[in-house]
């Protein structure tokens, strides 16, 4: 049995669904359930890669000060473009992981509340 209705809570009216069994997670919550950890892990890996790029770039900076070399300069400038790309892609994926974790919590409330 499924029915839709409204629940008056204090001054607020909340739309709700009435069912004879607990609801399962919805699509966003299921995605959050499975993707929260992989996203956080991938984000951290990308940030780590960005830091390795920064260290390599610092090494090239030292080499360039010792004497100019076209290859070193080209690598230095190339890594300078790649570094923010990796860093901010990592940030975006980490924030995605946080969003999925929040969706996971909402899924636990939805299924757990229904089961209780």
């Amino acid at each position: 049995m499924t029915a839709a209705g409204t629940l008056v809570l204090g001054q607020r009216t909340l739309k709700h669904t009435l069912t004879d069994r607990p609801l399962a997670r919805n699509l966003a919550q299921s995605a959050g359930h499975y993707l929260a950890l992989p996203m956080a892990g991938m984000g951290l890996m990308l940030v780590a890669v960005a830091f390795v790029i920064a260290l390599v770039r610092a090494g090239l900076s030292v080499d360039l000060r010792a004497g100019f070399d076209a290859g070193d300069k080209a690598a230095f400038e190339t890594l300078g473009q790649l570094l923010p790309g990796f860093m901010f892609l990592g940030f975006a994926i980490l924030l995605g992981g946080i969003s999925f974790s929040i969706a996971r919590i909402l899924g636990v409330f939805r299924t757990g509340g229904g089961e209780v």
Partner: protein
Amino acid sequence: MATAIGTIQTRYGPATVAPTGAGQTIIHTIANWMWLPALVMGAMAILAAIGLGIAQADAARDLGEGFSAARKADFETLKPLTAGTLFLGEALVLSGISFLLATILGALRWGGGEVQESVGGAVKTLRMPWSAWAFLGLMMLGVMAEAAAFGGLVYVATQSHDAWAGATAASIPASVEAFNRALTWATWANPLREVALGLLLGGIAFALYTISNVLGFQFSRLRELITGRDEGGE
């Protein structure tokens, strides 16, 4: 703190069974005390960074009016200090948020125990899961990395000052050695401050993941208490 009378395996991880509720751990206690100071310090550091940014803009305007070694040195000194202070503030705010998430975990642990104890059943408490250890490790690593990056950027500021104090032209530093040192240090210190934020964000993701697991365990325990049916502890 209650004495555990046994350990069981649940689908949310290992848990202890005790006659009374478990208290908060030292980590939760620290979090209860630290979340507000961390947030306030973070806000203060961000305000200080805004002040430094305004001073830097002022130095840039002075430099635009005419070159002088002191003006150039001021500008180049303020640049890394502004960035370092701003990111330190952001890291402290993220630490405050992390501490707040730890207080939520502490409240769930303590409150869950209280509910079970008041019903009169055995109190089951989830052991600290691996994701909580990951949260703790990433948060500490993030704060330490941010502190190191801030220290690095302060060094960049001192070297920049040494490089430009006494310069005679806008494009020729007085000390090439100091200028080179500042450049090399800035090459890794600037990304490190961003890495620190990434570590703190990763910690927050793991904290939220832990909260979802603990909530699942608490719902499972509530069902057990209501139905009287064991949901998987052996």
